[in-house]
């Protein structure tokens, strides 16, 4: 399974759990679920902040479920998926901040954002050959005199 397929599968798993909501944890009524389903279908659900928010509901929901009963195997998988997706959403949020800083030529801020992206450096630079542009960009960034 590629990384993209893994993310899609994780997201689908978390959304299925949210829509099913067997314990009625998330408080979504039928109307809310229908609106959310339309939103996901229309937007592909790629906005990092929205993704992070929904992953937060599920993480919180399963955290509290685990306080009063053992999570099922399916719930454990959903929680792991939510954590992976939330991490990725955070990476994209930081990348957006980095892009803003680069566009503004605010090198100290860009450096700060790049450092915050530390856990994802290997993914960003090494894992995908089509990220050559990003690699070049970041090399430029790290050779800026204002940063060093």
């Amino acid at each position: 399974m590629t990384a993209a397929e893994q993310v899609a599968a994780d997201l689908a798993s978390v959304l299925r759990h949210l829509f099913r909501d067997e314990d009625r944890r998330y408080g979504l009524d039928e109307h809310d679920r229908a609106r959310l389903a339309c939103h996901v279908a229309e937007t592909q659900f790629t906005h990092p902040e929205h993704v992070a928010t929904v992953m937060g509901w599920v993480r919180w929901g399963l955290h509290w479920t685990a306080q009063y009963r053992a999570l099922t195997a399916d719930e454990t998988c959903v929680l792991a998926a939510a954590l992976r997706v939330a991490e990725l959403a955070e990476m994209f949020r930081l990348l957006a901040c980095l892009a803003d800083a680069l566009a503004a030529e605010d090198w100290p801020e860009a450096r700060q954002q790049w450092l915050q992206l530390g856990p994802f450096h290997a993914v960003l630079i090494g894992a995908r050959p089509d990220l050559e542009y990003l690699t070049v960009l970041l090399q430029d960034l790290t050779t800026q005199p204002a940063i060093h």
Partner: protein
Amino acid sequence: MTKPQRRTPLTLIEELDIQFQARLRANHGVLLPLSASAPVPLELIEQVREEFLSVQEEEESE
């Protein structure tokens, strides 16, 4: 006094998150199944919405 008009309406996810946060607040941070949850007064939802908008306006003005 009239409230200042917000530039963009809340997104669906923001609206649902406000409901979610209000429910958490009504239950003192604990997320229980709906059958065991305290009811969420509309006033509390409105209060959370106001706080959310206030934070967002501050961020937009920065």
